[in-house]
């Protein structure tokens, strides 16, 4: 579809990890019994008033600063008015024309190329409660009734909206990974898609590249993982392209991603357009940060993923790709630096992490923090391989075992007998055996067929079940045969 351009914009909602909710002192905590993290304010009781959480505002400004957004000298909360039973006041305190942050950008890397995605806005609002649709068929439209839990109602929620400058599902994926990493580095959110603390809606349209006109924008909801964002966008781009080619009219609409079927489906169209009747929230004062406040937050900003990757390239001399793989995620970068801090060579550490460790994690479907493998393991493996105590192949075995059991590296080497035989007298005995048992190849080598040495080393390794140091074995074999 090279003659079509895909235009994607992402709207991400990030729940902040504050101690309390946005406008009241109820705990901001996942997984409590229904309607226990509530108070008169977040239940929307008559007469209650919101009081803004300073920490949440600091967090939002940090996100904006990290994205290079402009911090508004004056920003306002607005009321967004619409009825829905998960919203106790039937309006959401949100932001409208004066958000905390506007503009900015996020750099992403796809296929070795860096692309700068413009940001539209960063604003702060309150989350809604949770609705359980009691439905025998599992379909919301066929539900008999619904239940409301307001534990989540009022949790601080930051909306990060990109410009429609993302050009492919792959870029959307890279954008989400980068944004997630940035938020994690800032320590402002758990950023867990599966717990709903990081959510994403996508806007997508396609248009023939030559035509100046814009495509018809479709919004996709119910995207519960980065993978589903990518899949849904790929599906939707293809659907829209096919429609344009077939000269079918596309409608501006909201579609629902069906993860199981792998398709987007139109949501029941509304009876009439939305009219949120925004107006300035009269119960709250404007936010007017001065230079001192902004400078303090800037000073508190941690190293962000982009800077960290750059440092890994410059200081640890990693390849850019390796730097991206170990330097983007906060947890991975921390792990990497810990291993390096234990004295291991950075490039070797990165290789182990990107290669074997990644494969093991993927297979076991666990995250690095959940894994039993600790930085100490990797550092020990790197050291033992380097000093020749174990072979690279042995190192892989040790890692797999450490991954499974969490046992110390030395213990595993010991138990599995993986230490290489470098002791000359021990090795010489085996060399003699190999020569005695392979008269043919020995003859060939002596006749000048250099390549046969590999076969002989292999035979020796087999006899020692891999425990021999192959370099040492080859040296001894050559000595003996030329002697």
């Amino acid at each position: 579809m090279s003659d079509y351009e895909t235009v994607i914009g992402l709207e991400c909602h990030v729940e902040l990890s504050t101690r309390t909710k946005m406008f009241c002192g109820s705990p901001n905590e996942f997984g409590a019994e229904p309607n226990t993290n509530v108070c008169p304010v977040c239940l929307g009781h008559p007469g209650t008033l919101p009081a803004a959480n300073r920490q949440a505002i600091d967090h939002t400004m940090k996100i904006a600063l990290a994205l290079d957004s402009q911090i508004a000298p004056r920003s306002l909360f607005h009321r967004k008015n619409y009825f829905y039973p998960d919203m106790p006041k039937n309006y959401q305190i949100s932001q409208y024309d004066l958000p905390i942050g506007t503009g900015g950008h996020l750099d992403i890397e796809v296929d070795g190329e860096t692309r700068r995605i413009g940001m539209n806005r960063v604003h702060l609002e309150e989350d809604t409660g949770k609705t359980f649709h009691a439905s025998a068929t599992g379909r919301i439209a066929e539900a008999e009734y619904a239940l409301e839990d307001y534990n989540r109602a009022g949790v601080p929620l930051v909306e990060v909206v990109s410009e429609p400058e993302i050009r492919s599902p792959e870029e959307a994926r890279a954008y989400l990974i980068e944004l997630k990493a940035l938020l994690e580095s800032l320590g402002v959110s758990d950023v867990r898609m599966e717990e709903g603390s990081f959510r994403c809606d996508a806007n997508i349209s396609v248009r023939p590249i030559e035509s100046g006109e814009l495509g018809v924008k479709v919004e996709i909801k119910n995207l519960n993982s980065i993978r589903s964002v990518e899949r849904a966008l790929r599906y939707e781009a293809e659907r829209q392209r096919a429609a344009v080619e077939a000269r079918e009219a596309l409608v501006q609409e909201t579609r629902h991603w069906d993860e199981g079927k792998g398709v987007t489906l139109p949501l029941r169209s509304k009876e009439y357009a939305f009219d949120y009747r925004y107006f300035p929230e009269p119960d709250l004062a404007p936010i007017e940060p001065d230079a001192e406040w902004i400078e303090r937050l800037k000073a508190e900003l941690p190293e962000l993923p982009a800077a960290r990757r750059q440092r890994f390239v410059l200081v640890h001399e990693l390849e850019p790709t390796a730097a991206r793989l170990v330097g983007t995620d906060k947890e991975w970068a921390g792990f990497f630096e810990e291993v390096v801090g234990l004295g291991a060579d950075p490039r070797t550490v990165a290789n182990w992490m990107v290669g074997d460790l990644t494969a093991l994690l993927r297979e076991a479907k666990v995250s690095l923090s959940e894994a039993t493998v600790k930085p100490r393991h990797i550092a020990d493996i790197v050291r033992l391989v380097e000093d020749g105590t174990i072979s690279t192949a042995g190192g892989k075995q040790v890692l797999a075992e450490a991954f499974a059991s969490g046992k110390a590296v030395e213990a595993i080497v010991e138990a599995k007998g993986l230490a290489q035989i470098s002791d000359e007298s021990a090795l010489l005995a085996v060399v003699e055996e190999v020569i005695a048992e392979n008269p043919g190849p020995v003859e060939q080598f002596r006749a000048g067929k250099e390549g046969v040495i590999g076969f002989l080393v292999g035979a020796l390794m087999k006899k020692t079940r891999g425990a021999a140091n192959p370099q040492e074995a080859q040296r001894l074999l050559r000595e003996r045969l030329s002697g």
Partner: protein
Amino acid sequence: MPVEIDVDHVARLARLALTDEERERFRAQLRVILEHAERVREVAAEDVQPTSHPIPMQNVFREDEPEPTLSQDEALAGAPEAEKGQFKVPRIVEME
């Protein structure tokens, strides 16, 4: 400027079930009130800043400190209907 109000649309936005009689009465009364209210346009010039608050203030925050919550029973005490610790409502047909 005579004001025509789509009473049904507004009532739907406001989630108010009106009787036919109310609909007619409001249509007439709202027109009169709005025509009176339109006088604000006579004086509100371009260069006048709107005031949303009589006493100007800014940066009013609370610290991120937990406060006592209601128990589940207290939270549900006024609920017309509840089930499994949650507020029960009839099915939600409109996706919003």
